[in-house]
């Protein structure tokens, strides 16, 4: 990985972190929010991270490098964006699931009442990703339970 590719990946990963946390708060997906108890702080931090990442990437260094040389062509840019965004989102899922693990316990799915846990991102309004996925896996493995 070249220095430019590393800078691009870091920029995208940080921006994705900010955008994802801001959107999670706005859409009330509390299971994805790392600072769940402080939505206002999360919004401010998310905005600062996004603006800071853009400023860091563009200010100070000339980023207009030839896409046939040290820069990235369309395909490379798509691949690096997908990788950086995926890593950023996976890290957020892991950290938010660990930080909010107690909260998820009291807002989880009642397996005795329903056979299948609720599906979709909307369920992350009530529990963490790890808890939701674990309930899903248990339901699938449990079969007819």
């Amino acid at each position: 990985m070249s220095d430019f590719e590393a800078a691009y990946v870091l920029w995208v990963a940080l921006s994705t972190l900010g955008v994802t946390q801001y959107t999670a708060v706005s859409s009330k997906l509390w299971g994805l929010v790392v600072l769940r108890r402080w939505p206002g702080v999360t919004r401010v931090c998310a905005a600062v991270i996004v603006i800071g990442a853009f400023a860091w990437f563009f200010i100070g260094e000339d980023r207009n490098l030839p896409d046939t040389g040290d820069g990235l062509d369309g395909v490379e840019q798509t691949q690096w964006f997908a990788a950086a965004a995926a890593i950023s989102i996976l890290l957020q899922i892991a950290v938010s699931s660990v930080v909010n693990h107690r909260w998820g316990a009291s807002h989880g799915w009642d397996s005795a009442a329903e056979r299948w846990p609720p599906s979709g991102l909307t369920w992350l309004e009530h529990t963490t990703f790890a808890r939701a996925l674990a309930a899903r896996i248990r339901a699938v493995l449990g079969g007819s339970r």
Partner: protein
Amino acid sequence: MDSAIVLFLNAGVGNVAPFDSLMKVLVSDYFVPVTGSLALVSLWMTGTHETRPLNQVTTIVAAAAIGCANAITTIINNVVERPRPFVDNDLATGLFYSPTDPSFPSNTASVGFALATAVFLRHRRLGGVLYALAFCWGFARVYAGVHYPTDVLAGAAIGVVAALAMAALFRVLAFVPRYALRWLRLLYVA
């Protein structure tokens, strides 16, 4: 006419340093694509239980529209092979590197307008912001002397048509994203 507009706009390069700095960011290969992609990431998560699936279909349509616009532009690029403005004119080229691929039509405009149109069909405000970004991207390319205005206009037209075509296609094949989203919902990623 095309060359006259490029010469007129490009004559401004070097006169107002802050404006040139702004143009240097806007003309970049990275600012608008990454901003647009982040908007799609946000759109994917935004909404309620009822509206989120529609936003996610919009995201899928936008991604397909970008791919379609890019493919059409690449095919036309190879057929028309118009040289870049800085090849035929004496222009200030300090804002951007000198691309070696053909000028007509503008790939940046086609991608920017495809994304903006696909989003605008469902979200007027976000789509409007993306249209503004696509316009600024196209303007910056002409200002920097790497595209003629007609390159940008043709690219924009390709982008709009590609987005409308993909939106119509996904209306006919609505079961495809619906089926994909149903599986993704089981994994809590949609």
